[in-house]
C-alpha cells in the first residue's frame, strides 16, 4: 500500500512540471539556485523539493547556515502535512516516519564555516557516515560573501560525488535587483558555475517562478508553477508567456 502512495505522490507532484521545464530535472553534478527576496518562500520550496526526493527514496542532505535544527524539522513536518491534505494523498502521513530517515540535517554557523570545512564535513557524512546522498539542499548561504572559487568548489564536489545541489539565494537592497536578462545582480559574477537559475517573484497576489537559466543556457520563461500563499506549497499554475 505504501508503495502506491509513494507512486501517487511522485506522479501527482507539481514538481514534475519543474522537471519537464528544465529538461528532465537538475541532474547529478549540477548546481541550481532559487533566488528571491527574504520571506518570499525559498525555504518552503527547497523543503518541498527535498520531500519530493525523499518520497522517491532518494537520500537528501539538508544544509542550513542559519536556522536551528528543530525549525528545519518543523518545516518538513509542516510541508508534509500540507501535502497530505491534498485530495487522494491521505496515506502520505503514514510514510513520513519512514522516508524521513533518508534525510540528514547539517547545520553550520555562517561566520565560522568556510567552504572547504563545510565540504569536508559533507564528505565525511557521505563517505564515513555511509550516507548515499543524491541531493544536497543548501539553505541560507550568504551569496554576498561567496566568490566564484567557492562555488567552483561546490561544483567540483557535486561532480565528484554525483550530487545535485539546490541553493537558495537571498536578495537584499534597493530595486532594481535584476538585470535585463532577469539575473539578480548579486549572482551575475557567479553564473559560470550555476546550471539552473530560478527566481521567485511576487506578482499580484501570488509568487511565480521565472526560469532564467536552464542547464547552462539562458532560457527566460515563466514556469507553470506558483507558490500557494497559505500552504506554502508549490502548485501548478497555467503557464504564461514570458515577459
Amino acid at each position: 500500500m505504501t508503495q502506491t502512495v509513494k507512486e501517487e505522490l511522485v506522479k501527482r507532484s507539481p514538481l514534475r512540471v519543474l522537471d519537464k521545464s528544465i529538461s528532465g530535472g537538475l541532474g547529478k553534478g549540477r548546481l541550481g539556485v532559487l533566488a528571491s527576496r527574504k520571506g518570499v518562500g525559498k525555504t518552503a520550496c527547497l523543503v518541498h523539493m527535498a520531500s519530493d526526493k525523499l518520497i522517491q527514496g532518494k537520500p537528501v542532505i539538508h544544509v542550513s547556515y542559519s536556522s536551528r535544527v528543530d525549525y528545519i524539522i518543523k518545516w518538513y513536518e509542516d510541508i508534509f502535512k500540507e501535502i497530505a491534505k491534498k485530495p487522494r494523498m491521505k496515506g502520505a502521513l503514514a510514510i513520513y516516519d519512514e522516508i524521513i530517515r533518508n534525510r540528514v540535517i547539517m547545520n553550520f554557523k555562517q561566520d565560522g564555516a568556510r567552504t572547504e570545512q563545510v565540504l569536508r564535513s559533507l564528505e565525511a557524512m557521505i563517505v564515513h557516515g555511509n550516507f548515499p546522498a543524491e541531493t544536497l539542499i543548501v539553505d541560507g548561504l550568504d551569496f554576498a560573501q561567496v566568490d566564484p572559487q567557492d562555488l567552483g568548489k561546490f561544483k567540483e564536489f557535486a561532480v565528484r560525488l554525483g550530487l545535485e545541489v539546490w541553493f537558495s539565494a537571498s536578495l537584499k537592497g534597493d530595486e532594481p535587483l535584476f538585470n535585463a536578462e532577469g539575473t539578480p545582480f548579486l549572482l551575475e559574477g557567479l553564473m559560470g558555475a550555476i546550471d539552473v537559475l530560478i527566481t521567485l517573484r511576487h506578482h499580484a497576489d501570488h509568487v511565480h517562478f521565472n526560469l532564467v537559466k536552464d542547464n547552462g543556457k539562458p532560457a527566460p520563461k515563466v514556469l507553470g508553477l506558483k507558490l500557494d500563499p497559505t500552504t506554502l506549497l508549490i502548485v501548478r499554475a497555467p503557464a504564461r508567456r514570458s515577459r
Partner: protein
Amino acid sequence: MSTATARMRNIGISAHIDSGKTTLTERILFYCKKIHRIHEVKGKDGVGATMDSMDLERERGITIASATTNVAWGGHSVNIIDTPGHVDFTIEVERSLRVLDSAVLVLCSVGGVQSQTITVDRQLRRYNVPFMAFVNKLDRIGANPLKVRDQIAEKLGHNAVLMQMPIGLETALEGLVDLVAMKALYFDGPDGEIVRTGDIPPELLAEAAGLREKLLDAASMFSDELTEAVLEGRPTEALIRAAVRRGTIARKLVPVFIGSAYKNKGIQPLLDAVVHYLPDPAEVENKAADLDNDGAERVLVPDPAAKTCALAFKLEDGPYGQLTYIRIYQGSLRRGDELVNSRSEQKIRVGRLVRMHADAMSDIDEAPCGDIVALFGVECASGDTFCSPGLRLAMSALYVPEPVISLAVSPVDKNAGDRMAKALGRFTREDPTFRTHVDPESNQTIIQGMGELHLDVYVERMKREYRAEVRVGKPEVAYREALGRRVDFDYTHKKQTGGSGQFARVIGYLEPLAKGAYEFASEVKGGRIPREFIPSCDKGFKAVIKKGPLIGFPVIGVRAVLTDGHYHPVDSSDIAFQTAAQGAFRQVYLKSSPQILEPIMKVSVEGPSEFSGNIFGSISQRRGIIVSSVEDGTFSRVDAEVPLSEMFGYSTVLRSLTQGKAEFTMEFLRYGRVPPPVAELLKEQHLEKRTKDARK
C-alpha cells in the same frame, strides 16, 4: 502566606557534566558558613566535596544521588538540591525539579550549551521551572561568556540577558562588573570571602554601558514603571530588580550571571541573585489530584494554617534507618503531627523532623509551608503524598520511564546473597527506574535500569556499601514483541479428566494498538459468555502477553476483542476461560507476522569537528540514523537514533576514535522494529536458550 515562606527559596543546581556544579555548591556552602574548609571534587586532600556523600562519587568525580542541604543567605533560607548531570540518572534530576521552585543552570564558559544542557532545559520547561544561568569557569582558556549568552538565546530560545560582565578573562580574571548597580566587584582574601566594591575600570565603561542598556531594554518589558524611569534617565536598582524578577518568574527572561567557582569569584553575587530574582514557594502554583473528588485537580494554597499536603520525593537508607525527604506544599509540619499516606492510607506520626546538610543534620520542631525537610523511620515509597487526616490528595505522579537494559547478577556465596538482597531492596525503594526480579526459568536475579552506567554504579555500590560480591552477566536489552496485523481467533479449551471437566470457547480478534501496551474489549452479547467469565479472558490475555512466543519478551500494543464464545453450565470456570484466552493467543499470534521491537536511543555526541568523520562512521556502523549535525566553529554535535543493543561499550570506542575529546549522552526514545536478519538471530538465540534450559 507567612514571612517564613516569603523568605524561603528552593533551588536546584542543574548542569552538564563537568561544568563545575559540585564545586559551585561547595563554594555556596562555604560562604554560607555551613562548612569551614573548601574541598575539591577530585580533591588532593582525600576528603572530596561535601555534597558528594557517597564514596563512589568521590572516586569517580561525579555526583549521583541528589543530597539536599539548607543554607542561610541574607536573611533567607535556601534549600539546595545538588542534581546529577548524567542522563543515566535523569530520574533524579526530574524528581528534584518536581519539588523545586526554581533552578540555577550552570554552564561552562568554554563549552557553552551542550547536549546535557539541552536535556535539562527541556526538563525545566516540562515542569515550568523558572531559572537563571550561571556561566562558570571564566578562568579557563577560551572562556567567552558573551558567546554562551548568545547560545542560550539561539540554541535554547531563551530571552537571556547578561547581568554582569567580566573584568579580565582566563588567567587575567580579576572580578566582575555588576550591571545593575554599575559597580566593579572584587573578591579578596584567601578564599575570596571578602567582596570589595569599586569603580568600573575606565576602559570597560563603554562596554558596560552598552550591556546595561540591553539589560534595561529587556527588563522594561516587564515593568511600565521601569520604562518610565528609563525614559527619564533615572532607573533605580530596586525597579530593575523588580522587573527582572517578574520576567524570570514568568519564564520570559533568563538573567545570566558569571564567575569562576574554582577561583572563588562571583559566588556571593550569585547568592544575592537567588534571593533577588528567584521565586519563593508561594509564588509558584502547585496542583494535586483530589482523591475524594474523582481525582479533580486542585490548586494547593501555600498557607501554613491550612491542612497539610506534602510529597515524599526521595528515600535514603542511612545509618539511623530510613530517611524520607519531604516537601511541604500546603500547611506546615510539626513534630507529633499525624499524617496519612494517600496511597496506602497508612497513618504515620511525625517523630523526628530534621533539616539536612549533605551528611550532617539538625533537629527541628516545625517546618513551614514550602520547606524541604526529612523524616525518620517512615515506611513509604518515593512519590507518595502525605496529608493531614481528612484530606486525600495525590501530587501528580512522577513520570517514570520503563527500564531498557537488564543484567543478571549472582552473589558469590550465601552471605553475599543476603547482603545483595538488602542492597537491592534499598536501591529499588530509592530509585523507581531501577528494578529487580528473579527470573523464574534461570532462577537468576535480574536488575534493570536506564543504561549501562546506571547499572554499573549500583553493582559498585553493592560491593562498596554492602560488601556484597556479585558476578555480573552480560547486559541484555529489553526487547518487546508486537502483533504484525489483525488476526481472528476461535479457540475451544476442553478437558475431561474424571470429575468435573473444563470447557470454554472464545471467539474474537487481536489487533495492533498504536498507543499503549494492552487493551481489552468485550462485544459478547446475549450472555454467550457469562458476565463473570469476561474478566477471566482479560486475565488470560494479560498473562500470556508477558512472555511472547517469539523470543520470550513481553508483547506490547495488543488490543484483544472478544466477540462471541460458548460455555458449559457445569464445566466452565474462571480458570477454563483464562486458559482458553491464552490458547487463543498462542493459536493465532504467529499468524499475524509478529515483529520484534528494540529500544532506540536518542544519542547525542559532541566533540571537535575534526573527528566528525569518525563520529558519523561509528554511528552508521551501529545501525544508527544520523538526524542532524550542528557545526559551530571547531566544535560539533551529532544527534542520532541508535538501537540500544549496538551501544554497549560505545564510550570506550568513542574515546579511542576521538583521542578522548568527544563525549556522548543517550536517553530512551522509542521502540523500533528490529531488522529481519537481527530478528532471525534473536529467534535462534532464544530457541537455543530454551533447549538448553529444557535439558537442564
